């Protein structure tokens, strides 16, 4: 991103003065202007990401044309769910959990300390949902029926999947509302900004409730795979585990994402924000540590409760221990240590480990510890195509994220007129 580096705070300030849009025509012109890329296109990031994305889109078209089977994916009758659900959807949603946690902290508990990063997080969460919902469209076999749970003529009202679908949908709306003030400021629509700002709290509360339910709902999807998931992972309390883990999963993604975007978009940040930021990291890592500590004991408790201790001394048992110690206990204390000596590097490292741990945990439920008893020949592992598509989805999200951050007051201070209105 050498390009942006040249830009100065002055530019940012100039952007902060929002455009005057009188008519629809103006809006179109404005949009045209905004859609033009800023800075040079030939940044290393673009050069790497662009081909991957394009390749990914090609594969997506292929998949829609020729169906899910080999060679597109390795899905089989044994393993109905693979990387696209296991990583894109289930894991992605867990990572998006940061949004509702921070909203709770900021809007409900009024911890103003975390206010500066709230917009970035909400935007991130929103995009995550947008694109991971998109991933569902890719993964479900009969994607042209995707709207059925919404407007179909028969609702599976007592199906977990039905709840999850609706919650995804509604939560996206909620987050859009939460984020909408930024858009309004971008468009300089003052009236709209006022109304939307007023709606924030309602949206937040609705959103948190929904998140609670569908974060755990994703876990509840696996409840009826009792005979297939290894007893070390299957308990009647999978939903609770999913919910709890989504908290620190989300936060560690916030830490990770934040630390990157604070480098990339440094020019948008004023000093006040910058000095605040370390403090924020420390606070977040403390939260992570505490939650992970609880999560760890919860896991052990449930294994004992499920009479699964006897499996510890088996290959699956070792795998479980690696997940529990290597990816929960170790980062937990890494977070603590980092928090105590305000060592952001350590915190970021811990965040990364935690994220990997979450990925493993979710994949365990979808295909690693699922049907663990089948011989190697029938096992599932993602094809290069699946990986590419996943990568391109993530990259696309990053591109959109970048585009919006550059133009809208996400990291940067909102324009003065907007501040005067208060609300958020």
């Amino acid at each position, binding site marked *: 991103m050498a390009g942006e580096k040249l830009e100065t705070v002055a530019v940012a300030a100039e952007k902060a003065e929002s455009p005057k849009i009188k008519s629809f025509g103006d809006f179109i012109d404005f949009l045209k202007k905004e859609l033009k890329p800023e800075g040079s296109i030939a940044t290393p990031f673009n050069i790497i990401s662009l081909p991957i994305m394009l390749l990914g889109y090609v594969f997506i078209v292929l998949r829609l044309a020729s169906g899910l089977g080999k060679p597109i994916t390795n899905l089989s009758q044994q393993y109905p769910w693979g990387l696209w659900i296991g990583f894109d959807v289930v894991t992605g949603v867990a990572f998006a959990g940061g949004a509702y946690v921070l909203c709770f902290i900021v809007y409900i508990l009024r911890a103003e300390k975390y206010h500066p990063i709230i917009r970035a997080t909400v935007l991130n969460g929103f995009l995550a949902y947008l694109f991971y919902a998109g991933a569902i469209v890719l993964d479900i076999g009969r994607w042209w029926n995707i709207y059925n749970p919404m407007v179909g003529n028969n609702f599976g009202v007592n199906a977990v999947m039905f709840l999850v679908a609706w919650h995804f949908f509604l939560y996206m709306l909620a987050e859009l509302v939460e984020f909408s003030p930024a858009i309004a400021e971008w468009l300089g629509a003052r009236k709209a900004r006022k109304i939307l700002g007023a709606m924030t709290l309602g949206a937040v509360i609705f959103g948190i409730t929904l998140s609670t339910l569908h974060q755990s709902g994703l876990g509840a999807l696996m409840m009826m795979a009792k005979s297939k998931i290894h007893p070390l992972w299957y308990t009647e309390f999978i939903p609770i585990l999913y919910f709890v883990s989504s908290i620190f999963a989300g936060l560690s993604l916030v830490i990770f994402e934040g630390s990157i975007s604070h480098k990339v978009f440094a020019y948008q940040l004023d000093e006040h924000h910058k000095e605040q930021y370390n403090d924020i990291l420390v606070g977040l890592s403390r939260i992570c540590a505490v939650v992970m500590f609880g999560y760890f004991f919860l896991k052990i408790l449930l294994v004992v409760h499920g009479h699964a201790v006897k499996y510890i001394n088996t290959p699956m048992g070792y795998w479980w221990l*690696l997940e529990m110690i290597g990816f929960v206990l170790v980062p937990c204390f890494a977070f603590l240590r980092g928090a105590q000596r305000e060592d952001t590097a350590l915190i970021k490292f811990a965040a990364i480990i935690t994220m990997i741990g979450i990925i493993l945990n979710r994949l365990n439920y979808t295909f690693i510890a699922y049907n663990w008893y089948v011989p190697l020949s029938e096992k599932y592992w993602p094809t290069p195509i699946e990986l590419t598509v996943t990568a391109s989805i993530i990259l696309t999200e990053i591109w959109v994220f970048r585009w919006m951050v550059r133009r809208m007051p996400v990291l940067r201070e909102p324009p003065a007129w907007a501040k005067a209105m208060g609300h958020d």
Partner: protein
Amino acid sequence: MRRTVLFLIIGVIYLILIAAGLGMVYTAGEPVPAKEREIAKPDNKISIAHAEIFGKLERPQVIFDHKKHEEAAKSEGCGTCHPVNDKKKLLFSFPKDVKGKDKEAVMRAYHDACIGCHKQKRIEHKKSGPLVCGDCHQDKYTLVKPISYPVVEFDFERHDKHVKKLKETLGKDTCRQCHHTYSFEEKKLVYKEKTEESCYYCHDLDKKRGPEVAAIIKVSAEKGLSMQNASHQECLNCHLEIRKKKGEKEAGPTECMKCHTGKYKTTAELEKIPRPDRGQKEKSYIYVENAKLKGVSFNHQTHQKYSKTCMACHHETLKACKECHSLTGKPEGKNVNIAKAYHDMFSEHSCAGCHSKQTAKKECAGCHHNIVAMDLETMSPRKDTCALCHTGKEPLPMPAPLSTSGLKQDKIKEVTVKVLEKEYEPAKFPHLDIVNKLAKISNDSRLATYFHRNIQTLCEGCHHRSPVTTEAEKNTPPYCRNCHMIVYDKEDLNAIRLLTAYHNQCMGCHDEMKIKKGNSMVFVEGGRCAVCHKKKKAGPAELTTVKNQRVYNQNKKIILNRWRPD
């Protein structure tokens, strides 16, 4: 800078862990074969494991070559290893003195005995055995099943041999050589003539017996005379003595494999051998005081030919049944009344039990597998069947063998079944041949000849649920069609269709009689179906009764391909 390196290193370690873990997990589903090998030929080796004491062994079991040691210690004699009891008789246990039954003691005893001797030999500069653990506890034996020798069957033939041989030297006190019983008065073994019994009665320690015998068993248990010890003592000591007196070839075997051959004589082979005579009657008229039914005349001689031991029927002692079983049951007979004693379906010792076992033989099972046997519980049993045994007169009349001459030969020569005409050529069923075959089988066996009184009895095998009498009257048993419909009965979906009736009846019989041809389970060349009905050359209008023209059309090619004659 250094920290980033550190982080990198940790990261790499994590990657390795994940990779290794995934490898482990992905192969977790693979089945793990851990099977015990079995040593095909024990040849005189003994495996020392003592699972009953040690349970799971720390070191591999010891496989002990008895022959080798025997030869090594020829000069010293068996006494070197085996203890001797007060009567100067060798006890074939090892080692000599075992203090206690706990792991420590037993292990110590073995180690002392074996290694001690081996050391001794070393000192005497003689050829000697190993002293180091690994040489006896060889690792290659860890997954080897402990060697076990097949039980020796001292059948009537061997018994006969022994009697003949010993008669030459001992004359009239031959039997007392081995046979004995324990008298509580004299507190020692005594011998009474004509009361010889099998060793098992008193020395089979894990059998539960009546009060009388149980007392004796208790004694032999105290003396540690299990069947194994007792027989080894009796046989081997005797054999060794004779070997001393008369030399090798006169004497009986002392090698494990010589007796423990694992080869057993069948009743057929033993039929010619005369049964040991202790004054049992040839024929006996079994008659119980004021019993409801008439007496049964029982031919003991013929029956004892069909069992390898006396114990087969005389399960407790060699006494008559009514000694222990009375009309109302006696304590010494565990209060089993005599009716049950004779008619218990599930006992090997009762008449009914043994007879119903016979009907399970493959020759008989064909018909009998779906004829429910009659026993005491049967409500309103068929009088004529009871009367077959309960004749109430002696001598026992043996009926004439069955013959099919009485039947309308031409009428029942062959039956043509056309149920599957659509698909197959009609099946030709050689009815008469089958009847003849059955008659032959019946005539070959005494039991069958006695119970199948007339040829119509055989018809019941297939034309079930139609009593003999009706068939006897007019010589036309019902057709299958009379009861079994061609179509499904919508009212009673469990009703057997004609198709099923044929298949189950024919194949059921073939299965039970272990006839390879027309067996339902075993594949045969050219297909099981073709055994009875040849495939039609032309393709059928429709394969099954299913009406599905669309599918048929779309699959016509496949079908025709499949139905092209091969």
